[in-house]
């Protein structure tokens, strides 16, 4: 029986190789994403200087691209927690190859999402008014508002995900410590907390991991439900509907899984990790993509059908507007990307083809962004009172900030890939027997 120790040593070397001197393509990617980030920050600076009027949001569409981006990024975050926490509880072994990357994706996506309520505030320096603290104005926040629920839900999600991600990394940071020297070693010594791998350390660690997974699982469902309730708690057609909570959660996992594929397909190639992240792992991800796509399609169908079933004139008018009104091209593109294209995953050859999955994931990302845009804007553009109808066109500033959010996300992700182990080394060792 050959020694597994050799396999483990090789695994460590392979993952750490990804953290050594990066290729030119890495620096190019980092430069591009940093530039995008800078453009976004510049646009935000301009908006702070000139006021929210530089964005296209006005009556009646008071929520536009910024809220779309917020929901989009929070959604992306959910898939990471699904892979780390939910699949852990279900003992799905395939998760071990990308749970570290997926969790990192969650952290950065939530950070990016968290910026948007601030951007949307206009007077963003007053953001602290969102938090309940005793103040001179003698008032408290309105806990009955879904916007305050958002504050709590997203903050909780960020904190718990950060703890979960960090704790999961501690044994791996100890491994990197072993291979490092100088200042780098000191940093890893501190952050690995003096980890040795004794039996009680593993015992406490294992329990903590399980409890955090058990706590993070209801978060996956609840956080995006709370975000969906930003819309469902209103009374306008297209927004006030009970199915929003599970519909948005499924959509979040859908878009998040697509983003995992978008990130991991190139990362695997760039870092030569083909041995550890196999085509079968991607096939499992593709199946999750297909499953959540079908839940989203189910929601589209039910919403549409019940609007007509109810005979409620405003509901019917709204869904006709979505299908044939001002935003019809976006709506049809959304249906193509979210409901039709993912059906191709039923074909085994396609779901085992990484190039195809990568391209499909890009379409899904676009489709899910459009879905949020269509839901938000079409309902606001045309609700009950014809006097209050109007349309919305995003401005360049909004486009620039959206671009900046992608830049921020990719910049953080690239830095993570360079400075931290992208694979969960310890967990892969555990299952390799």
């Amino acid at each position, binding site marked *: 029986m050959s020694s597994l120790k050799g396999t483990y040593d090789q695994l460590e070397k392979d993952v750490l190789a990804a953290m050594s001197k990066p290729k030119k393509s890495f620096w190019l990617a980092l430069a591009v994403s940093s530039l995008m980030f800078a453009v976004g920050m510049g646009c935000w600076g301009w908006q702070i200087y000139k006021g929210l009027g530089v964005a296209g949001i006005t009556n009646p569409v008071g929520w536009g691209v910024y809220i779309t981006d917020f929901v989009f990024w929070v959604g992306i975050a959910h898939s990471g927690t699904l892979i780390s926490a939910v699949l852990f*509880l*279900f*003992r*799905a072994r395939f998760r071990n190859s990308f749970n570290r990357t997926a969790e990192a994706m969650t952290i950065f996506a939530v950070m990016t999402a968290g910026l948007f309520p601030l951007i949307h505030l206009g007077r963003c320096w007053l953001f602290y008014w969102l938090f309940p603290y005793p103040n001179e104005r003698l008032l408290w926040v309105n806990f009955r508002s879904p916007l305050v629920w958002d504050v709590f839900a997203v903050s909780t999600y960020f904190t718990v995900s950060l703890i979960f991600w960090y704790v999961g990394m501690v044994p791996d940071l100890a491994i990197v410590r072993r291979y490092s020297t100088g200042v780098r070693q000191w940093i890893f010594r501190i952050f690995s907390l003096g980890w040795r791998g004794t039996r009680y350390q593993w015992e406490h660690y294992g329990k903590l991991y399980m409890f955090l997974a058990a706590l993070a*699982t*209801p978060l996956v*469902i*609840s956080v995006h*439900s709370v975000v969906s*309730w930003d819309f*469902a*708690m*209103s*009374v306008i057609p297209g927004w*006030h*509907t*009970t*199915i*929003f*909570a*599970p519909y948005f959660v499924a959509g979040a996992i859908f878009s998040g899984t697509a983003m995992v594929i978008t990130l991991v397909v190139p990362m695997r190639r760039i870092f030569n990790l083909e041995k550890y992240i196999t085509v079968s792992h991607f096939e499992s991800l593709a*199946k999750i993509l297909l499953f959540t796509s*079908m839940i989203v399609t*189910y*929601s589209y169908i*039910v*919403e549409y059908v*019940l609007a007509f*079933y*109810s*005979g*409620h004139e405003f509901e019917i008018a709204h869904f006709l507007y979505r299908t044939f009104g001002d935003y019809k091209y976006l709506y049809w593109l959304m249906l193509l990307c979210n409901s039709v294209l993912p059906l191709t995953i*039923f074909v085994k050859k396609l779901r085992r083809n990484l190039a195809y999955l990568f391209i499909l994931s890009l379409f899904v990302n676009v489709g899910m962004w459009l879905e949020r845009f269509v839901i938000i804007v079409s309902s606001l553009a045309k609700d009950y009172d014809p006097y209050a109808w109007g349309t919305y066109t995003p401005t360049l500033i909004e486009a620039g900030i959206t671009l900046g959010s992608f830049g921020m996300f990719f910049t953080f992700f690239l830095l993570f890939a360079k400075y931290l182990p992208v694979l969960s080394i310890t967990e892969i060792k555990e299952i390799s027997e």
Partner: protein
Amino acid sequence: MQRNVYLFGLAALIIALGIDLLAGDASLLPALLFWTAIPQGIIALAAAADLSQGRWILSIKDKLHRFLPLLILPPFAFLIYALHHTPLYAWHEHPTAWLEPTFFTIRNVAFQLLTFGLAYLYVRASRGQSPRTGVWAVLYCLCFVTAQTMQGIDWVMSFEYPWISTLYGAFFFIEALYLGVATMALLSLLLLLRHGHSFEKVLRDSGALILGFALFWAGQLYAQYLTIWYGNIPEEVAYVAKRVQHSPWTELSIFVVLAMFVIPFAGMIPRRSKVSPALVLAAVVLIYAGYMVEKVIYIAPVAPLSPLFTVLQFIALGLPAAYLLRQLIRSPEAEKAAV
């Protein structure tokens, strides 16, 4: 053994018909919903396990497949119900294109038959370990979701036409899965008591699933409640207000939340309770009771429903399931000989 289950099913249908003619109200419906949800949910769980290649369910999967014959009840029991009771519905006097008695009856019977057909094809493929098992599993699951959605929307929600809740149909199939998980737990604990430790792992996993589904069920119930409460639109709130603000529905609603969420959830948190047959049995019984009471709360405020006949129909339609459960628990050797 399978043939006997079908015979019990036929007997159940005849008895149910008799009771229904005596009762003259909607008492067949809650029992029908219950005894449809369980086999549909169980086969869906087996199909999901096949699709995700879950190994945890292997020791019990073939027993789950044996719930297939129970799926022959829904189309015919529904036919009995629909032939007599469509006048109870709000849309009967003013039918629309979709909500019209003949179409209503035909499409629902057809869909339940389709569900049985696809379940049969899936079970046959899975038992024979055919490479096309995945295809039939997917088709069954799609049909299961649609059938349960239609049950929710057509059979129950349309009593209150034109009131709608888009999550209603999905809530029904989530409940079917929840009942399926509870039944799987029941089966595991009975097998554990009879045949010993080899079934302990499945029991623990079933207990954990009960924990998860209890929370998930509560979350979806809350999603509907919160949306309707917050919007406070009179036409919409009336549905909920009728069912939580007047006795006896208030007390029954509280019971439903306790029985289907609070007690099973809190009970299944400790590690030891997941493998304790007594505690799991208590949770399962509560979940079953909660489901029946919940359906009564949906139907009774708008359609005549007598408690006595509801219970009688529950027992009548449950006869094939009781027989099946008894057969499944007998020793594997005897079972193999009997088949």
